[in-house]
C-alpha cells in the first residue's frame, strides 16, 4: 500500500472532521469574512496553531487579492499550494554507515518507531543494529527486543538503570566489528527534568560523534500526531540538546490531524521525514507533503 492510500485510510476519520470544515468553507459562494473565519476555524482545529494559521491565511489573502481570485476551486488549490510549500524541504539522501538517534517525550512511540525503522532499512537490504538506550522506563528494552525480533535485526541492551551512553558505545563497537550499515538509537522519554535529559542526550551525541565520526548521523524527534501546540516546546527543548534533522510523526491513524507540523515549520525549519500510520511493522512511511495536504482536504 502506498503512502497516499494508507494515509488516506488513516486520515479518513480526520476528513470527516477537518475535511468537512474545509469543504464547507470552500463551498460558500463568496470569498468574504465568513469564508476566512471558517477557514481559520478549520486550520486551528487541525492543531496548526495561531501563528502558522495567521501566516498562511495572510499569504493566502494577499495572493487572492493580487491574482483577483474569485473562484473557490482556484482558491482551494492556492491554499493547498501555500500549505504544501510551508512544509516542503530538501532532505539529503542517506549515506552508510548511518546512525539515527530518536528522541522525544514519553509515550509518543519512540520504541515502536525504532522497530519500524529497523524494518524499513532491513527491507532495503541493509544490516541494522538497534541500541536500547532507554534504560529508564520499566521494560522499555524488552519492548524493543520484541520489535528487533520482528524486524530480524540485532539488539544491544544493558540492564535497566544503566548508563544509556554506554549502551550506545557498545552498539557502535558491535556495528563496527560486524560492519553494519545502520545503527538506530532508542532513548528515554523525559520532559520534566530537562537538565538530566539534555545531559544524557549530549553524552550520547558525543559518543556517536567520537566513535563513528565518518558516519552519516541524523537525530530525529518523534512527535505524536495528537499533540497540540506543546509540540513546539518539545522541539525547542530537544533542539537545545541536539541538532534536530527531522521529525517522525506518529499515530496519524487516529482522528488527529498532525497540523502542528505546520506550526513547527512556521517557527523552525525542520522537515517531517517519516509518518507512522498504524500498528503494523510496515506502517512507517516516508513523508510526502503534497499527499499529506491532499489527504487533509479530500
Amino acid at each position, binding site marked *: 500500500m502506498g503512502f497516499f492510500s494508507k494515509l488516506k485510510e488513516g486520515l479518513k476519520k480526520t476528513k470527516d472532521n477537518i475535511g468537512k470544515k474545509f469543504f464547507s468553507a470552500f463551498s460558500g459562494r463568496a470569498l468574504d469574512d465568513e469564508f476566512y473565519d471558517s477557514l481559520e476555524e478549520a486550520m486551528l482545529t487541525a492543531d496548526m496553531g495561531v501563528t502558522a494559521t495567521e501566516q498562511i491565511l495572510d499569504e493566502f489573502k494577499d495572493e487572492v487579492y493580487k491574482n483577483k481570485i474569485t473562484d473557490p476551486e482556484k482558491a482551494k488549490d492556492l491554499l493547498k499550494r501555500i500549505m504544501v510549500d510551508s512544509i516542503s524541504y530538501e532532505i539529503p539522501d542517506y549515506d552508510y554507515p548511518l546512525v539515527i538517534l530518536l528522541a522525544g517525550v514519553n*509515550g509518543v512511540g519512540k520504541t515502536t518507531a525504532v522497530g519500524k525503522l529497523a524494518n524499513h532499512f532491513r527491507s532495503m537490504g541493509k544490516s541494522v543494529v538497534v541500541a536500547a538506550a532507554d534504560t529508564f522506563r520499566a521494560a522499555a528494552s524488552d519492548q524493543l527486543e520484541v520489535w528487533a525480533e520482528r524486524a530480524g535485526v540485532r539488539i544491544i541492551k544493558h540492564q535497566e538503570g544503566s548508563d544509556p551512553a554506554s549502551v550506545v558505545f557498545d552498539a557502535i563497537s558491535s556495528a563496527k566489528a560486524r560492519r553494519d550499515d545502520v545503527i538506530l538509537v532508542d532513548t528515554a522519554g523525559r520532559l520534566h527534568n530537562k537538565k538530566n535529559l539534555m545531559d544524557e542526550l549530549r553524552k550520547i551525541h558525543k559518543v556517536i560523534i567520537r566513535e563513528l565520526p565518518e558516519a552519516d548521523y541524523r537525530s530525529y524527534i518523534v512527535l505524536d500526531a495528537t499533540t497540540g501546540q506543546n509540540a513546539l516546546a518539545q522541539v525547542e527543548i530537544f533542539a537545545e540538546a541536539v541538532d534536530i534533522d527531522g521529525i517522525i510523526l506518529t499515530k496519524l491513524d487516529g482522528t488527529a490531524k498532525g497540523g502542528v507540523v505546520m506550526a513547527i515549520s512556521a517557527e523552525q525549519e525542520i522537515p517531517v521525514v517519516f509518518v507512522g500510520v498504524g500498528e503494523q511493522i510496515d506502517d512507517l512511511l516516508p513523508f510526502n507533503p503534497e499527499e499529506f495536504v491532499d489527504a487533509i482536504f479530500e
Partner: protein
Amino acid sequence: MAFDNLSEKLNHVFSKMREKGKLTDLEVKQAMREIRVALLEADVNYQVAKDFINTVSEKASGEDILKGLNSTQQVIKIVNDELISLMGSTHSKLVVADRPPTVIMMCGLQGAGKTTMCGKLSQTLKKQNKKVLLSACDVYRPAAIKQLQIVGEKVKTPVFTEGQINPVKIAKDALDEAKKQGAEVLIIDTAGRLHIDEKLMQELLDIKSAVKPDEILLVVDSMTGQDAVNVADTFNKQLDITGVILTKLDGDTRGGAALSIKAVTGKPIKFIGSGEKMDDIEPFYPDRMASRILGMGDVMTLIEKAQEAFSEEEAIKLQKKMKNNSFTLQDYLNQLESVRKMGGIGKLMQMIPGFGGKISEDDIDESKIAKTKAIILSMTPEERNNPDIIKASRRKRIAAGSGTTIQDVNQLLKQFDMSKEMMRRVSKNGMRGMKFPF
C-alpha cells in the same frame, strides 16, 4: 508546572488591564481577543474557547457586574469563575463499592500513561491503607505486562497476570482472585487503543460487562491538542466513563485539554499525574487549578503536601527547636529530605501565591541541593549537632569526603548560620502559622 504558559499570558493581559483600571468596551473586546489566543495556544478546544469568550464577554458587559469592584477586577473574577465552572466546580472522589472489591478500569489511547498511572493510583490507595490488586490486561503491546509488574513491584502491589490470552477472561479471573485475596480495590490496566478502532472498543465493552467496574477512568495525555475532545467524547459515548485522569501535566504542558474535556463530556477530572515518581499524583480540585492558572497560587495543596511529609508532632518539635535556637544541621538535612518528598522546591514554589508562573522548575538548581546533602552527610553526627567545632582540618576532610571544595563547605556553614538567625527572629516575633520550615 502545568498551565505556566497560559498563566503567564493571561496575567499579561490582566496586568495591561490593571494599568487602565476602568475599561472601555473596545478595551474589553481587545482583552477578550488576547485571552482567546492564549487559550488556543494552550490547546483549549476551538469551540470551547469560543464559548468561553462569549460567556465572559456577555457577563462582563451584562447585568452581572458587581458593585464596588472596578471593571478590571470584575473581568478577572468572571474569567476565574468561568474557568472553575469549565473544569467542574467540585472535586469528585473515587467511587467506593458497597461490597468490595471496588473495580477500577483504566482506558485510553496508546502512550497516554495508563500503566504508570495504575502504579500511582495503587500508591495513593495504599496510603489510605487499602489492599490493592493490579491486573494486566494489555496483551498487545510488547512487554506491557512486564512493565506493569515492575511498576507493581515499585509500589509493593501484587499484579495478576495470565500472559497474553483473552483480556476479558483475565479481567474476570482477576476479579475472582481479588475476592479470594480480600483485596479492597482491583485496578485493571487495559491496552491503549484508538477510539475509532471498533474491534478494540468492543473488547473494552466486553470487559465492562464482565466485571462491572465501579469506575471507568479515561487516561488522557495533557499534551493532546484539539483532538482531545474527540477522543474523550468517543470513549465516553461508547463506555460511559466515570471520570478522567490527566497525565504528564509537567514540563511545558499547557493543559488546555483539562479545560475542554469536562466541558465536552460532562465527566469530572479525578486525578492529575505530574512526574515520573510513583508519588507524583494529585487529586484534582478545579478551583485550585483555576487559581494556579491565574497565578494566584494553591495554598491548599501546599498545606496538604506538607501534612503528608511532616507529622504534626514533627512540626511542633521543629518549631521548638527554631525558637530556642537548637536547630542543627541534621534537622536541616531532614528538612531537605521532606521537601524532596513533597515534590521538590520547584513544584512547591508554583503553589505559593505570587510565585505562580514567575519561577519555573529550571530556575532551581536541584544539583545544589544534592551538593548540600552530600556535604552534611560527610560530617560526623557530632559535627552535625554542633557545627561550631568544624575548623580548618575538619572542613578539609568534609570537602574531600563529599567531593566538594572547602569554599562549598564554608558557604554552607555560613548559610546555615544565617538561616538559623532568621528562624530565631521569626519564631521570636511570633509569626503564627509560619509552620513551614523553609
